[in-house]
């Protein structure tokens, strides 16, 4: 939570010396609150105030990146307990765990397969976000070899899992450039793990075996040593305990500004559950309730597709509904003679009309206009779904090249656009469809002659 200008003003010298370029200290405070000035512009602010201001302007949950480059996973920097209060910002990373005891070939093969997994939804492509490699063998050389083999087969971010600092060290020698996460610093090994995290500038997970007190002591120690890209494992597993503990940690970080738990979480839904199915359900809970990096032990496309879909739902900005990428979508392998229907890019509008066309068995072309995620009537009344927009989309998507006819069906809710559209699209016959998606099958049956 950012400070207000008045709160910042209390820390300033209040001398109105103007050297910062602002007429008064209060004006400078206002600029600072709006992030339009830097505190360093004031030469007279005391060290003590500086520290207090820096601490207060820190996000309550630190943003931490695992991996480097465009595939890196960024988690944290959340500001609310419930998504309706603002939104959840950084989607949790779904990571698949392999073990070095399986041998480097097998681990690398799994990593490769997992890395190739892709699924499309609402015109976007999603997949697995990372690979965790566990030092099941306990042997540092075996681990390093396995990590090297995996990293040769995937560009996904890695989580290196070992409690033996030698194992982590020998693996980091090979892959530190890719900024893998170290898992985990514990009470027993934290000093050596801090050294490694500093040396290679990698994010580090901290695991407590004895509740939040021990966790806070460990993170405090790491932060004081300069390792601040931390990920937390409070050591709890299963449904009830993770719900309670993750909720408490989020509250401590947001509402109490308790810095030692102000970092994203890592969770292991596969530990302490009875089956892969239960793992998937618990992973779902962690998506909705405060998970950060979610490490799965089983990779099943059906489960992962469900989890990715859930993540998309939960992390949608309530102010900005899920949108389809505008474009010309094919329903059931349409032919050039198949109907052409126009709709908006609000995902639920798209799904309703696409679903009804499919259910009614109508191969068709569905032209999705960019209405900024608004439904038909809302978009129309906001001026984002008018004749001009529809005409431009028809032309822009080259609909005339895809269909051999010149008929376009518009939603019944915007029947008033017909006249204007006839002017904007003189070559096309404008057909007014039904008001409700449900009736589209019946409408086409009656009015569409192919």
């Amino acid at each position: 939570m950012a400070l207000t200008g008045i709160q910042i003003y209390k820390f300033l010298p209040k001398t109105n010396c103007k050297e910062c370029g602002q007429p008064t200290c209060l004006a400078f405070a206002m600029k600072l609150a709006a992030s339009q000035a830097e505190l360093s512009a004031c030469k007279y602010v005391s060290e003590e105030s500086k520290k207090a201001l820096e601490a207060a302007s820190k996000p309550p949950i630190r943003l931490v990146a695992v991996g480097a480059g465009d595939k890196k996973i960024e988690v944290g920097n959340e500001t609310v307990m419930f998504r309706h209060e603002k939104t959840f910002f950084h989607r949790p990373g779904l990571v698949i765990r392999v073990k070095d005891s399986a041998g480097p070939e097998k681990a690398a093969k799994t990593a490769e397969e997992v890395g190739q997994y892709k699924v499309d939804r609402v015109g976007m492509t999603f997949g697995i976000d990372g690979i965790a490699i566990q030092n099941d063998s306990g042997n540092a050389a075996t681990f390093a070899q396995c990590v090297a083999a995996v990293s040769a087969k995937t560009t996904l971010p890695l989580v290196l899992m070992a409690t033996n600092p030698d194992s982590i060290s020998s693996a980091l020698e090979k892959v530190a450039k890719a900024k893998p996460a170290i898992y985990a610093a514990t009470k027993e090994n934290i000093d050596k793990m801090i050294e490694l995290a500093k040396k290679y500038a990698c994010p580090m997970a901290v695991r407590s075996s004895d509740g939040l007190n021990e966790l806070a002591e460990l993170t405090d120690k790491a932060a004081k040593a300069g390792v601040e890209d931390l990920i937390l494992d409070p050591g709890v597993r299963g449904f009830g305990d993770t719900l309670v503990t993750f909720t408490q940690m989020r509250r401590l970080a947001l509402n109490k500004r308790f810095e030692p738990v102000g970092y994203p979480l890592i969770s292991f839904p596969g530990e302490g559950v009875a089956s892969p199915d239960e793992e998937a359900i618990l992973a779902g809970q962690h998506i909705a309730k405060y998970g950060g990096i979610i490490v799965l032990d089983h990779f099943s496309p059906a489960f992962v597709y469900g989890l990715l879909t859930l993540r998309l739902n939960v992390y949608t900005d309530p102010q900005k509904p899920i949108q389809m990428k505008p474009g010309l979508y094919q329903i059931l392998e349409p032919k050039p003679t198949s109907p052409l229907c126009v709709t908006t890019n609000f995902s639920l509008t798209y799904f309703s009309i696409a679903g009804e066309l499919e259910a009614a068995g109508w191969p068709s072309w569905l032209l999705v206009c960019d209405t900024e995620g608004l439904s038909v009537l809302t978009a129309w009344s906001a001026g984002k779904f008018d004749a001009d927009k529809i005409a431009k989309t028809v032309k822009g998507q080259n609909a005339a090249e895809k269909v051999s006819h010149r008929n376009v069906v518009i939603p019944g809710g915007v029947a008033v656009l017909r006249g204007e559209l006839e002017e904007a699209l003189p070559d096309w016959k404008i057909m007014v469809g039904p008001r409700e998606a449900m009736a589209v099958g019946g409408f086409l049956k009656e009015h569409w002659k192919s």
Partner: protein
Amino acid sequence: MPGVEIPIEKWTGKIKEVKLGGGKRKEIVLGGENTLPFLSFEGSVPHPPTVAIEIQDKEPAGWSPILLSAWGDAVKDPATWAKKAAEYGAEAISLRLVSAHPEMGDTGADVAKKTVDKVLSAVDLPLIVIGPGVAEKDNAVLVAVSEAAKGQRIAIGNCEEKNYRTVAAVCISDGHAAIAKSPLDINLAKQLNILLTDIGVPADSVIMDLDTGALGYGLEYALSIRERVRLAALGGDAMVSMPVLSHAGAEAWRQKEAKASQGMPPGWGSVEERGIIWEELTALTVLNAGSNIVTMMHPKSVERIKATIHKLMGKK
């Protein structure tokens, strides 16, 4: 460094308790908690959420083959279906009177009464009966249902803003609970509860159906409306503190992801797993956001969600 102090949130409000069944029939209590879902470290959750199995009075058309094979021939007869649902661990039966819909058979009050009689004698579980969703037919068949189930305290729905008087009246006279359905909107939900209580439905006889979007199809709205309603209720707004019912199964199994077995992208995985996880994630999400009863359809998802609730209640 000083020890970590766990923040405790104490609420002034509490979710109302609504009882179903009783007498010779098994009794369930919905609601009663004074804390957010499953956070019993700072409040009390006296009654775990109930898992009901949804059945219908007509052999289903267009259902997923996965669902149909799980139930076999039981789907041909609601009483047999209800019995099998009880064997599969249903804690209540939710019966949808599909055949009364004008386009699905247009059966009348006599058929509805007979079906409800049969289901009530087949199982001793609490019953929920949902009409076909067309106002005049709802009113016609649900009046008969209410009379047939007098003394058994069932839940009857739906009462909607445009059509609630008839169903509410028979719930009052026959001692049933009314299901108040509103479209994902806290103000409309509250408004309908006020209308119902104003005409005399006791506040402990209203169950809210806040509407449910399935995973991938508006689940985020279902999640947020429940969290908002729950926070308002615990904050002291008695007019939204009725227990919440979520039709997780019907919504999830309606979707393409749950049904489609052929020609799907490889990323969708196996159809056997997909429909079930779709239903489970839908149910889990609405439970964690605030639901006191979920209706579900597949025996496997019922089993797992019951186990999940058990664990969320802090039992091993």
